[in-house]
C-alpha cells in the first residue's frame, strides 16, 4: 500500500519469498515502477495522496477485491496510522507492522517520553506534561538550563519546534508554537526539553515479536540532514565506541520490549557532544534507510517483517547478528541544492546506473518516467558497501560519478560535495553540518581545463550531428514530430559504429 522505491523494494522482497504482489496506484502512477513490477495492480483514485494513497477505505477495498492476505504499508502515507492497521485486521487481513497501540503510544511524544522514562530509557531533560503557562515554562527552563526547545507532542518531521534562548522569548514562542501545533497536528500540547546543540542523530534498528521478545540490528547514523530531513545515512556510526554502541543498542531493545513491539521499528536517539544520548522518538515502520543495516548485517528486513506478521517470530538471534564492513546510503532527491533544495519534477530523459561490486540501487524511477509533482521528491537510493568506511567512501565517489540523470534537477552532485568535506570524512559531522558548511551559492567546484575542453568539444559535435540530421530533412529537435516508439530501426545506427 505505497508507491515509489519503497513499494518496489517491498515487491522485490515479497517476490524473493515467492509471494504474489498487488500494487495500488493513483491516476498519475499508472506507469510508476511499482505498478509495472507488481503481479496485479488496482487504481485507487486521483493524484493527490489525500484522495488515493491516504484513503484507508480505498486501499482496503483494493486488498479485498484482489483477495490479498496481508498489507505492507511501506513508510509514510498510512504506515503509522493506527485506525488503518485496526481496519486491516478487522477486515481479516494481516497488517505487516506493529499494533495500533504501539503506533499511538509512539505517535504522541509526551506519552512516549513518559513510557520511556518509566522503562529506564534516558530521555532529554524536560517536562512530561504539556505546558500552557509561560511562567511554568520559564521555571522549567531555568531548572534545566537554556537554551530549551518547545516541542509539539504530536509534531514530527522537524515541524512544531522552536528554540528558546532566554526567558524574554518564552511567552511569544510558546504562543506561536501552540498555534502552529494546533493548526498542523490538531493538537496544541507543547512540552519543554533541553535543547542540545551540535547533536548527532543515531538510530537503532529493532525487531520485536509482539510478546516482549526484541533484538537490535545495530545503529545507523543519520546526521547529514537538510531542513531536518536525512539525505545520507551510514552504518556503523563513526561516532560510537564499542561500549557506547552496546549501551545505545540495549536502550533501543529496552524500548521495544517495554511496549511489546511487533515487527520492524527504529528507535531514534540524540547523541550529545559529551557522549550522553537521549531517546528522541520511535518510528513504528520500515525506515527509508533500512538498506544500510541490511548490507552491514546481511539481513532482509522486509522478509523479517513478513515472518513476524505470519506469527513465526524473530528470524534472527541476537548472538548471530554482527556488523560487517560499512554501508552508506545516498538519497536521490529531485531537488535543487542551489535553490535551498527546492523540489523539481519532470521526465527522466536519460539515466545511467552505477554497477559493480558493493553497489545496490533501490529505485522508483526509470528512463522515460515522468516524476509527478504530488509526492515526495525522493526518486531512488544508492547504497554502497565497503570493507571499511574509507573503501565505502571511495567506492561511493566512483558510483556517484557513474550515476547520471538528465531530467529533473537532482542532488547527486550535492552528495559528491558532502563526500569531499573534511567534517564528513572524519565523521565529526553533526545535524548542523549542512547548515554550517553548505553555501548554496558557491559549492559547485569549477570545471578543470580538460573537462571544459571535453564539454565544448562534445557539445559542438552534438550540435553538428543534430544539424546534419536536420538538414537531411529530418527535424529531430521538433518535439511534436517525435515518434512514440523507439524501434530498433532507429537504434541500429546509434551506439558505437
Amino acid at each position: 500500500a505505497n508507491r515509489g522505491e519503497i513499494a518496489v523494494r517491498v515487491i522485490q522482497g515479497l517476490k524473493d519469498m515467492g509471494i504474489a504482489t498487488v500494487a495500488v496506484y493513483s491516476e498519475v502512477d499508472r506507469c510508476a515502477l511499482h505498478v509495472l513490477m507488481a503481479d496485479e495492480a488496482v487504481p485507487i483514485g486521483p493524484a493527490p495522496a489525500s484522495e488515493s494513497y491516504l484513503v484507508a477505505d480505498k486501499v482496503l477495498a483494493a486488498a479485498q477485491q484482489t483477495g490479498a492476505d496481508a498489507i505492507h504499508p511501506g513508510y509514510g502515507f498510512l504506515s503509522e496510522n493506527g485506525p488503518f492497521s485496526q481496519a486491516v485486521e478487522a477486515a481479516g487481513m494481516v497488517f505487516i507492522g506493529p499494533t495500533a497501540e504501539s503506533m499511538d503510544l509512539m505517535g504522541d511524544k509526551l506519552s512516549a517520553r513518559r513510557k520511556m522514562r518509566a522503562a529506564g530509557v534516558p530521555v532529554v531533560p524536560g517536562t512530561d506534561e504539556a505546558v500552557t503557562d509561560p511562567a511554568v515554562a520559564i521555571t522549567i527552563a531555568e531548572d534545566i538550563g537554556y537554551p530549551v526547545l518547545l516541542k509539539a507532542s504530536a509534531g514530527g518531521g522537524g515541524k512544531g519546534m522552536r528554540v528558546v534562548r532566554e526567558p524574554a522569548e518564552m511567552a511569544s514562542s510558546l504562543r506561536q508554537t501552540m498555534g502552529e501545533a494546533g493548526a498542523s497536528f490538531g493538537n496544541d500540547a507543547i512540552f519543554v526539553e533541553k535543547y542540545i546543540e551540535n547533536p548527532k542523530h543515531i538510530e537503532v534498528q529493532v525487531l520485536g515479536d509482539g510478546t516482549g521478545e526484541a533484538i537490535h540490528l545495530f545503529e545507523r547514523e543519520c546526521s547529514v540532514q537538510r531542513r531536518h530531513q536525512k539525505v545520507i545515512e551510514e552504518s556503523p556510526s563513526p561516532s560510537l565506541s564499542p561500549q557506547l554502541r552496546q549501551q545505545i543498542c540495549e536502550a533501543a531493545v529496552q524500548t521495544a520490549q517495554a511496549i511489546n513491539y511487533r515487527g520492524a521499528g527504529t528507535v531514534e536517539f540524540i547523541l550529545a557532544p559529551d557522549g550522553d544520548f537521549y531517546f528522541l522518538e520511535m518510528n513504528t515502520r520500515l525506515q527509508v534507510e533500512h538498506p544500510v543495516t541490511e548490507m552491514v548485517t546481511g539481513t532482509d528486513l522486509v522478509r523479517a517483517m513478513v515472518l513476524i506478521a505470519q506469527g513465526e517470530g524473530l528470524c534472527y538471534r541476537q548472538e548471530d547478528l554482527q556488523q560487517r564492513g560499512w554501508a552508506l546510503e545516498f538519497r536521490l532527491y529531485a531537488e535543487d541544492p542551489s535553490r535551498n533544495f527546492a523540489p523539481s519534477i519532470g521526465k527522466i530523459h536519460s539515466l545511467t546506473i552505477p554497477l559493480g561490486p558493493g553497489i545496490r540501487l533501490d529505485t522508483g524511477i526509470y528512463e522515460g518516467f515522468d516524476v509527478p509533482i504530488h509526492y515526495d521528491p525522493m526518486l531512488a537510493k544508492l547504497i554502497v558497501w565497503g570493507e571499511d568506511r574509507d573503501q565505502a567512501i571511495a567506492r561511493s565517489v566512483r558510483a556517484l560519478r557513474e550515476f547520471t540523470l538528465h531530467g529533473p534537477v537532482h542532488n547527486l552532485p550535492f552528495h559528491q560535495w558532502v563526500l569531499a568535506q573534511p567534517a564528513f570524512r572524519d565523521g565529526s559531522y553533526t545535524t548542523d553540518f549542512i547548515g554550517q558548511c553548505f553555501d548554496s551559492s558557491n559549492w559547485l567546484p569549477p570545471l578543470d581545463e580538460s573537462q571544459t575542453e571535453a564539454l565544448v568539444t562534445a557539445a559542438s559535435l552534438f550540435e553538428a550531428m543534430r544539424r546534419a540530421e536536420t538538414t537531411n530533412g529530418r527535424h529531430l529537435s521538433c518535439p511534436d514530430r517525435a515518434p512514440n516508439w523507439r524501434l530498433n530501426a532507429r537504434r541500429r545506427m546509434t551506439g558505437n559504429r
Partner: protein
Amino acid sequence: MLMKKSYVLTLEGTQHHAVVASGDDRTEVQVGDGPAHVVDHYPVLDGRAISLRLNGRMHLVQITGLDSKGNVMTTIDGWPVPMTVMDELKAMALESLGGVAASGTIAADIPGLVVEIKVTEGQVVHQGEPVIVVEAMKMQNELCAAVGGTVARVPVTVGQPVNPGDVLVVIEPEPGG
C-alpha cells in the same frame, strides 16, 4: 573536403568558440584559438553520451538535447553542466536582436557558391540590408547585415565556392549600430 562550422557555446557563464570541420573520413575540432585536431569521438550508451578521446584521456560526456535552440544538458564525471550551443550566425542574430552590439562579420551558413555581391568596400549599409547572395542546391540565400555600418572588407569574389564559417563580408559597425 572538410565542411567547416563555427559554434558559440556558453557554460558556467563563459562563452567558448569552437569550429567543427567534418569530412567523410574524419572530424577536426578547434576549441578557442587552440589548434584544430582530429577528434576521436563516438556516440555511445545508445545515444545518451559521447565518448571522447583527447590526447589519450577518456571523457564520457552524457548529453541530452533539450530543444532546437541549442540548450543541452551535459554531465561529466558526475557533474551536471547545462550548456547552450549554437552556430555562430544564429548567435549573432540573437545578439543583434538582443540589442547587444552585434558583430559585423557575415560568414557562410551553408556550403555554396557566391553568386552576387551587393556591396563594395567603403559602402555604408543599414542593419538588415542584403549584402551578398550565396547559392546552394539551386537555392539563393541572401545574407543581410546584422548591424549597420561601413563595409570594411569583402574577402570573396563572385563565383567563389565557400564553406560554412567562411567570412564573406566584414562590416565596421557605426557607433550604436
